[in-house]
């Protein structure tokens, strides 16, 4: 087991390096660095100032030097650079925003799993039943709908139109059209209570997306397991179906699901750029979009670097989890 882990770790190292080089190059090679933008905004700028600024930001150094300086700063000091737009260090900016994103993605994730896993299992066990068809149909919908449009439609339904308000008993069901917090609420529990009303729609939108994917996956994984010989043997032995499922089939069907879940975690931290933009939720996804639109490269680079790190770590964790759950892998 430790040899397996060691092997996986070793395989990761060239990957980490490769990823960091790619990330750095993608942004460093892009036409138009921050100083060029300054020039564009202020054509009167003097050539000496341009040279001085470029030197100050280290933009006139050869690429490989800039790469190592950036890598060193990021890894050794946790210094991911400085945001031009927000005038704060990138690291603290990301830190603040990540927790906002997690407020959306974690509830959506759990809600999705809560619904998807039972529905997927039921669907697999009762294949070709009416409910299975209904569930499969719905997953098609969930997978085909554009997230941002769904969000806009939800906003329209719950914040703008809300036709049910004609019934006075239901008039309370109105949700804000986006945003994060109401003004005037800034302390203590009230902040969290207030945030919930802003959270409901984006969480629902996001979780429906996750739900469709996970339902499909659970269903197909369960279907595969149930066809296996050992399940047939268990049934032949006379065990009742419930026992067969719970004792034998479920555990094996869950293995790929656990792997998928572990690999989804970096996605949770990546926020949901589209959903956050539609609902005006100040999370990491929205930060990425605005920083790319505003050419604030330090922020974009920092976010991607953090994401890449998370991807690597959770890939390793997924490997470990898989090896722990499925002993067959260890003797590969």
């Amino acid at each position, binding site marked *: 087991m430790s040899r397996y882990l060691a092997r996986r770790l070793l395989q990761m190292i060239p990957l980490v390096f490769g990823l960091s080089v790619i990330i750095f190059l993608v942004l460093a090679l892009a036409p138009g660095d921050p100083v060029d933008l300054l020039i564009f905004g202020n054509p009167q700028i003097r050539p000496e100032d341009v040279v001085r600024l470029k030197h100050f930001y280290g933009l006139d150094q050869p690429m490989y030097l800039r790469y190592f300086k950036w890598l060193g700063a990021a890894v050794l000091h946790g210094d991911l650079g400085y945001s031009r737009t927000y005038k704060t260090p990138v690291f603290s900016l990301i830190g603040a925003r990540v927790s906002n994103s997690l407020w959306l993605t974690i509830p959506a994730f759990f809600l999705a799993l809560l619904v998807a896993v039972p529905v997927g299992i039921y669907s697999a066990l009762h294949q070709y039943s009416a409910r299975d068809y209904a569930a499969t149909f719905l997953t098609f919908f969930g997978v085909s709908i*554009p997230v*941002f*449009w769904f969000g806009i439609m939800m906003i329209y339904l719950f914040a*703008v*139109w809300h036709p049910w308000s004609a019934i006075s008993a239901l008039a309370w069901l109105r949700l804000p059209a986006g945003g994060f917090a109401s003004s005037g609420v800034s302390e203590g529990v009230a902040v969290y209570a207030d945030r919930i009303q802003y959270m409901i729609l984006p969480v629902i939108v996001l979780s429906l997306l996750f739900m469709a994917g996970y339902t499909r996956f659970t269903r197909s994984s369960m279907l595969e397991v149930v066809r296996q010989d050992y399940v047939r043997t268990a049934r032949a032995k006379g065990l009742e179906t419930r026992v067969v499922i719970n004792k034998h089939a479920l555990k094996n069907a869950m293995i790929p699901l656990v792997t998928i879940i572990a*690999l989804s975690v*970096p996605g949770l931290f990546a926020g949901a750029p589209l959903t956050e933009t539609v609902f005006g939720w100040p999370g990491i996804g929205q930060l990425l979009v605005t920083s*790319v*639109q505003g050419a604030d490269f330090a922020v974009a680079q920092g976010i991607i670097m953090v*994401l890449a790190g998370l991807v690597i770590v959770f890939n390793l964790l997924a490997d470990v989890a898989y090896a722990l759950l499925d002993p067959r892998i260890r003797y590969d």
Partner: protein
Amino acid sequence: MAVIAERGLVVKSPPSEGYWRIAWGRLKRHRVAMVGGGIVGVFILIAIFAGSLTPYAFDQIDLYKRKAAPSLAHPLGTDELGHDVLTRLLYAGRISLTVGFSAAAAAVLLGTLVGGIAGFHGGWKDNALMRFTDIMFSIPDLPILIIIARYLGGSVLGIVLVISAFAWMGVARLVRGELLKLRQQDFAEAARAIGASDTRILARHLVPNALAPVIVSATLTVGGAILTEAGLSFLGIGIQPPTPSWGNMLQNAQDFIWTTPWLAVWPGVMIFLTVLCFNFFGDGLRDALDPRLKI
């Protein structure tokens, strides 16, 4: 199927149907898939003939009729700049479908290459390539796409390249799986035993048999590509106005949701319907080609 009568008489049976003909027959019976395929076909036709179907150009504006409600002259109304929504919707179909198809094609090519090398050679190449594919799978694609699209985006070609860079992994895995399975079959071993070269085995025996899952995967990738393009265009990093795309038609729709909500409805409905129908068709295709396929 030969019918062997009791006295040993063998009645000649009609020649058995080919694989593709059987599959086509199965597909035709799958009603949902055929409806989906039909709708997609209609959309494709509309996209090709968009020019002849509408009296306006897609960038033609009528400043006196901005944000007009649906009327006879403008069946779906006008947007905030005075464009006819229906016209832009149809032209946008052209762009979105083109991007979807091209990106899926590029992704399939890329994925077949990677999966092919991995599945055919096995060994360390297989390990390394699959590891790479797994990592690419787990990278949240939208953030990276957002960054790359900023520089390569704007043009259709750029968007296609960007999207296909993150869409090839499923195909690669599939192709590799199929090749691994096929390599061990008797016909492949027999071919090698009589001295067929690698290329010949690959081209003549393995690839034709591995085609079925690739086709299904390609169909399903188109839907994803359309969604991704719409998302990027919505954020302003994909297809740039005035070229219409279903995504960028929704860009400003949210701001006008209080006054002219219909602007937000139609582009999204088109995206949704197109992707849904592609998915239905792909699903039917998969069932038709081999119900046992586990994609």
